[in-house]
């Protein structure tokens, strides 16, 4: 064994010691020894045998130089020359095979990665009535393939970064050159490079870097559906894919998008628009209803018809808590139920929700801890917030804030809460773009489906580029 080869192999062995899956294989050819090193857990072993080892052993050609081996013997799709021993580690851990030619003092890396992956499945978080059902999985290659399948545009770019000092996680930045503003691309690249973590496992590290701080609203969008990402890319946005995460995030993300679903564009538009109106109504209801309820029934009896006043008063007779405490208890109670429904295994979760809602709710009323009216308001509010899952966290936090302000100040508190919410939303940005855009501007925004969807061919796809620029 040559001195160089020995140094390289010793370096690899030292660095990757105590790794059961690392395979060291020596092959003797006429010219000398060839060392093959790979990670059996991340490589396709059949591929290694059939297309790397077997051609070398069965070849009649003399391996006088590296080019002969690369061009005439090894049947791998991708071969990279390695110049320094440090590079080998990353290649091995990425599923590549390292071939060290002892007699040539050279080493190459061949792509043979085969990580365990989930197949393409229906995304559980974004079900659609009519429309594509495929969802991303954790494999970057599959995700890129799913996007490329929908956009066969040479301007569609996939730029790669490695983030995470130790995890070396591959992050892909995707955009369509010409549709996506260059300042947006530069901004996102700069932000991604700012991510300093040793191990990048989830996409949230990147989201955190890009999104507005100190707000429960998500100012970065995410989706599991490649068709959604294809639309966003076509509109001129930028998508970020992280190896090992089935969610792809995109920016900029606007508030009004929280109320859109794929069905807005794929189902009967009248029904889709009714759905949109319901989602907007549900958002307002879920944010404002508890606060308004408290303000009216604790401060402003004169604004409520006597029938409601008397019914609520009778309903609350005997309840030991003040109304605001009662509402907060019930909201927390529903949040506990929701959390339990999410955490429990799939078959038990829905059962628990039904049991919780029906039996525990009724029991709470029967035991005199709460009133029917409060249960109804809180239940309706909670269910309404599920219509807009993208901002359900923000809804919860803001309805609590408005609730507390309303309990302290009555309707003035309620109005202040609502104005604070509007000003908070107006102050948010998503990668430099106003989060509320196009709401609050008189500019002729290129979205033609701000709240309702009209003719699809009139919905402009390029939202950042002026018509004249195209």
């Amino acid at each position, binding site marked *: 064994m040559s001195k160089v080869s020995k140094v390289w192999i010793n370096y690899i062995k030292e660095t990757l010691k105590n790794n059961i899956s690392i395979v060291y294989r020596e092959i003797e050819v006429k010219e000398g020894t060839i060392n093959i090193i790979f990670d059996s857990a991340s490589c396709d072993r059949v591929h290694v045998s059939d297309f790397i080892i077997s051609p070398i052993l069965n070849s009649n050609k003399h391996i006088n130089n590296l080019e002969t081996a690369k061009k005439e013997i090894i049947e791998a799709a991708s071969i990279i020359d390695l110049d320094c021993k440090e590079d080998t580690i990353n290649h091995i851990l990425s599923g590549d095979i390292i071939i060290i030619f002892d007699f040539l003092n050279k080493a190459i890396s061949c792509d043979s990665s085969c990580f365990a992956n989930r197949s393409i499945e229906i995304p559980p978080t974004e079900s659609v009535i009519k429309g594509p059902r495929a969802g991303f999985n954790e494999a970057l290659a599959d995700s890129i393939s799913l996007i490329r399948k929908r956009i066969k545009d040479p301007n569609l770019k996939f730029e790669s970064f490695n983030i995470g000092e130790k995890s070396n996680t591959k992050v892909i930045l995707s955009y369509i050159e010409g549709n996506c503003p260059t300042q947006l691309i530069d901004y996102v690249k700069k932000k991604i490079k700012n991510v300093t973590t040793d191990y990048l496992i989830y996409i949230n590290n990147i989201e955190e870097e890009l999104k507005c701080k100190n707000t429960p609203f998500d100012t970065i969008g995410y989706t599991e559906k490649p068709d959604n990402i294809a639309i966003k890319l076509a509109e001129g946005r930028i998508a970020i894919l992280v190896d090992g995460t089935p969610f792809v995030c995109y920016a900029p993300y606007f508030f009004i998008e929280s109320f859109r679903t794929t069905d807005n564009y794929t189902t009967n538009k009248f029904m889709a628009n009714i759905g949109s109106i319901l989602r907007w109504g549900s958002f307002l209801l879920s944010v404002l209803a508890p606060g308004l309820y408290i303000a009216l*029934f*604790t*401060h402003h*009896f*004169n604004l409520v018809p*006597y029938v409601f*006043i*008397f019914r*609520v*008063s*009778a*309903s*609350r*007779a*005997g*309840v030991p808590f*003040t*109304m*605001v405490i009662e509402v907060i208890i019930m909201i927390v109670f529903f949040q506990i139920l929701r959390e339990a429904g999410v955490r429990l295994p799939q078959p038990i979760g829905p059962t628990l929700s039904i049991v919780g809602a029906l039996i525990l709710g009724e029991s709470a*009323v*029967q035991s*005199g801890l709460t*009133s*029917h009216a409060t249960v109804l308001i809180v239940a309706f509010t909670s269910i309404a917030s599920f219509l807009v899952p993208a901002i359900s966290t923000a809804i919860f936090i803001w309805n609590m804030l408005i609730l507390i*302000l309303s*309990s*302290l*100040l*009555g309707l*003035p*508190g309620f109005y*202040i809460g609502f104005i*604070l919410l509007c000003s908070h939303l107006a102050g948010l940005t998503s990668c430099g773009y106003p989060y509320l855009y196009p709401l609050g501007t008189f500019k002729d925004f290129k979205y033609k489906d701000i709240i309702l969807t009209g003719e699809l061919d009139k919905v402009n796809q390029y939202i950042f580029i002026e018509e004249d620029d195209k």
Partner: protein
Amino acid sequence: MRKLIIILSLTLVLTGCFNYRDVNRVVFVTAVFIDIDENNNPILYTEAYKSVALSGEAAGGDSRILLKGTGDTIFEASRHLNDTSGLKLNYTQNKAIIFSEKASKYGLNEFIDVFFRDQELLARQFLYTTNIDLEELMKIELQEEMFLGIYLSDLTENKPAQTRQPLIRIDEYFITRKLGSKIVPISFIEKKEGVIMPRITTHKLAIFNEDKFINVLDYDESFYYTLLIDKLTIGYTTVPHPNIKDALITLEIANTNLSQDIKYDGNTIYYTKKVKLQTTIAEVQKTFNISYLKDQKALEKSAEENIKKNLIDLYEKYKEQDIDIYNLQKDIDIKYPNADIDSDNIFDSVNFSIEVDVSVQGSTDVIDFY
């Protein structure tokens, strides 16, 4: 954050004190009754709603509370009411302010100020007066409604029952009591005679002059009065059959249009009320053929004469008592504020006439639908 604190602090200052009150920790007044004692001091009664917890039931029940308080003023009496109530009385749901006949004759201006001045009492309360003893009135048990205030409120929204009563809310009263001859009609509560269960009705009007009760219009007078002051929304009038003696025809009023023509020649005011009624035939005794134009015109003429006669009779009846029942003074003041007429003796300067135009437009069996 600093801005938020400033906004919250300002709001606290602007909204006054902390006013949180649980809805079940309040007694809601539904009706206020006002009487006077032998020294003319007010006696205040309230009928109120209070929710009560029922053992073994998820929801509570309703209870009716009657309270009585006295004092030198209504405000003082209302404070004394609270002495006997476990929870604070809240007047936001008050529907009716009912004056006894005695208190009405003494003068509403002695009692009514606090109801308009206090912000908790709303402008949408209706005023009533009654000849029934107030304690007896409060004890009447109505089958369909536990609370008299709410029953009266419902009654005001029951259109057919309104045909002979104008709805005078407290805000309206405060305006009209100062206008023209200061005549204001208020609904009059009385016991319904000849019924199986004790009932009350408000189909008559009590006339107030300068806040003092002067007289009650009877059932028909109330109708014609309501018609002439343009408060009639729906109603009916029964007229003699134009062709058959002793038979009657009832006309249902579909629409009314009232206008007045006021002219002043320097000495006399010529005041003409023009009443237009669109009616349909609601009921005919014997027979009547509307297709005959001659018969239709005869019917219209008969109705016009009947209505005109009643309106004039009412005017003349009160003219003899020197009461400007239709408050002509108000319209004259508006049109001729500088007219040289004696407002204390308006009848010497006013030539009043009424024109009635009735059109019969068909029959209820064609126009109605269900």
